[in-house]
């Protein structure tokens, strides 16, 4: 696939009609799953916010609310052998990867039944089984690691691809540029997904970044890149499919810049003086990835309104169960303090 082609095909309306026209059953199934998975992440994060407010979750807790379409659309392009690695804003990535909401929530509350036995917390969770490689607290540090996973894939000729997520703020770290060069040099199977939610903590992208079109970041190394509407799960899916195919075919890395938005504060203690309430409200009302997609499904006759509501009810139950599990589970045993330091 040529680079020009990749950009042109980012318009998915040809394949996904905006309204009225019927979709085939495979597409309908995929779309229903998109809706379910995005809503699962939304409800999970709302609950995590509540538990934090009650003091049941401590430390940092970075919510993914607003960005759900990115990870849900991307995950649908992957095979089980493919890997995912991301930052501390990782709850959504874990749920999309199929990790158990109860196990994730129990890690947030620091209990023994959490994915890291309560020892990692919100920012540091992993699942070998689901090929989820964390959950990393140091901005930028997961990017060379994702590149290394891709290196291993090529070395082993296992056909797997690594999706490496990071933020607009992280995009400025030196090790990102170092990774791009190596990935391009050795044609590694990695897709770099920049989740450009416009802010790094309290810093709007324009105040930290000379060239704000982040999809161009790989151009010095001749890595193809494209901007994607990260509030539209189908557009994410379409762009992701092409990027994954490109890198799986051995053509080297690919950069996708997802234009997205976080509704909540950076972490829980965010005075939010760096943007207006109207800006947030505007995104919520006009571009919400779940509401707009739900409306589209109804318009296209894929799901009825009451079916959307039923999905919500079922998810709320799952999440309530996860919260109960996470608050009922015991803390790790004191012996765990000294385990897992070395093998």
């Amino acid at each position, binding site marked *: 696939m040529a680079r020009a082609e990749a950009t042109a095909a980012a318009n998915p309306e040809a394949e996904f009609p905006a309204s009225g026209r019927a979709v085939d059953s495979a597409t309908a199934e995929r779309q229903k799953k998109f809706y379910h998975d995005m809503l699962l992440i939304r409800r999970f994060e709302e609950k995590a916010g509540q538990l934090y407010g009650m003091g049941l979750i401590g*430390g940092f807790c970075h919510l993914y609310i607003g960005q759900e379409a990115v990870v849900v659309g991307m995950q649908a392009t992957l095979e089980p052998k493919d890997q995912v690695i991301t930052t501390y804003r990782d709850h959504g990535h874990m749920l999309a990867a199929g990790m158990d909401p109860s196990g994730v929530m129990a890690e947030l509350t620091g209990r023994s039944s959490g994915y890291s036995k309560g020892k990692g917390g919100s920012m540091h969770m992993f699942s070998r089984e689901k090929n989820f490689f964390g959950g990393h607290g140091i901005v930028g540090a997961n990017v060379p690691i994702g590149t290394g996973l891709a290196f291993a894939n090529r070395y082993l000729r296992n056909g797997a691809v690594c999706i490496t997520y990071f933020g607009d703020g992280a995009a400025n770290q030196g090790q990102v540029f170092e990774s791009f060069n190596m990935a391009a040099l050795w044609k590694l199977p990695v897709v770099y997904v920049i989740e450009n939610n416009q802010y*790094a903590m309290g810093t709007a992208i324009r105040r930290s970044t000379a060239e704000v079109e982040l999809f161009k970041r790989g151009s010095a190394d001749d890595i193809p890149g494209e901007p994607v509407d990260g509030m539209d799960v189908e557009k994410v899916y379409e762009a992701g499919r092409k990027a994954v195919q490109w890198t799986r075919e051995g053509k080297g890395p690919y950069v996708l810049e997802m234009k997205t938005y976080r*509704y909540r504060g950076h972490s829980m203690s965010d005075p939010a003086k760096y943007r207006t309430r109207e800006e947030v409200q505007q995104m919520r009302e006009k571009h919400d990835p779940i509401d707009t997609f739900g409306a589209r499904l109804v318009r296209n006759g894929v799901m009825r309104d009451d079916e959307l509501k039923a999905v919500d009810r079922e998810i709320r139950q799952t999440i309530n169960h996860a919260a109960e599990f996470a608050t009922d589970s015991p803390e790790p045993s004191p012996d765990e303090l000294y385990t897992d330091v070395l093998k």
Partner: protein
Amino acid sequence: MTQILMPALSPTMEEGKLAKWNVKEGDTVKPGDVLAEIETDKATMEFEAVDAGRVAKILVPEGSEGVKVNTPIAELRQEGEESDAPPARVPATETKSIKQGAGPRPVEMHKPVPVRTPEKAVDRAAALPEEIPSGAEFVTMTVRDALRDALAEEMRRDDTVFLMGEEVAQYQGAYKVSQGLLEEFGDRRVIDTPITEQGFAGLGVGAAFGGLRPIIEFMTFNFAMQAIDQLVNSAAKTLYMSGGQMGCPIVFRGPNGPAARVAAQHSQDYSSWYAHVPGLKVVSPYFAADAKGLLKAAVRDPNPVIFLENEIVYGRSFPVPKLDDFVLPIGKARVIREGSGVTLVAHSISVGLIMDAAEELAKEGIEAELIDLRTLRPLDAETVIRSVKKTNRVVTVEQGWPVCSIGSEIAALVADEAFDYLDAPPSRVTGKDVPMPYAANLEKLALPSIADVVSAAKRVCYR
């Protein structure tokens, strides 16, 4: 009916002021609407609705101070509560689901280290360096404000001093240490950076070579690991490598050590890392007066100074002298309590710990002598040795890991210079030799406690 509880809005928040209600009884709200404004010691934050519903009752009026986290502040009736909501629908916000007994009790386990007040006579004397002239007046202020004042005073004094780091300007500092500085000094001298620690640390070194006096803030020292090459290979070594021509007058500062529940990658004490490096000075105060006087000294020092602060200590209040230009010498420890039973040595937040331990020990008839190191490099060996020669026993206390720690260094020093005076082997109380766990119970076990210090002190006293 759902109770809305006073939220915890930061890792260290215990209580806050309910500054303002943005809704009144009877209002309907939807997710994202601002319910109230809540003031913590760090900031005023807006508290948003998570669920849709109608505000049925406001339980805590606006203007209420010291509202404890988890106190019910209002009641919300959710729309369609009866129809599609079985009772279990919103358990997390209902008081009944705050599990007691079965699991740990979340509110207590969330509690940060209690705030010390300087009311007690011993504390007040302890908090004041002897370098303060007699007759000086004092104000009580937080360590955060003392540091801020030091920065502002040095920037007023010398135009070549500037502050650079992530979120230092518009956001007023991630931990609010640089509050108001952008307003006073403008964006030429208070500069927000991209998240590029190695880049701006190295840029700071270059600016120092070029005649400026940079103060480089790391949001926390955990992130200085991205930049440590510039601190060690460039800042520390260049004077030597240039045969004395160059020199690098720069301050690298920020919070060091564990905060609360932020887990392994954000909870490390780097004291001994930097104390290891020739060509650096390393300062790590506890009290507000020391923080102020030593930061001013660090800015004026012609060498690179690593200035290690502590997030939890930022909010503690101590007396600070009202003097026009209060500068303390780098490299001097301070005896903050005299005693003859055992010497306890600490720096930064662990000074608070040895003060508490000393009270416990006094109840058991052991009078501890307490030393606040204040500077880690050059280490004030003389003050430590003098004390050990008097008490014949020493316990070191720090949050860092035990291997090659500040305590290891002091133990070696004491063995070297006061061996014949020792009645017991030196003892080290440190953070446990593991990455910091997230779980509340394990985190507590990983950190040195009053009980650890008391038991080590008793052990060296053979009690």
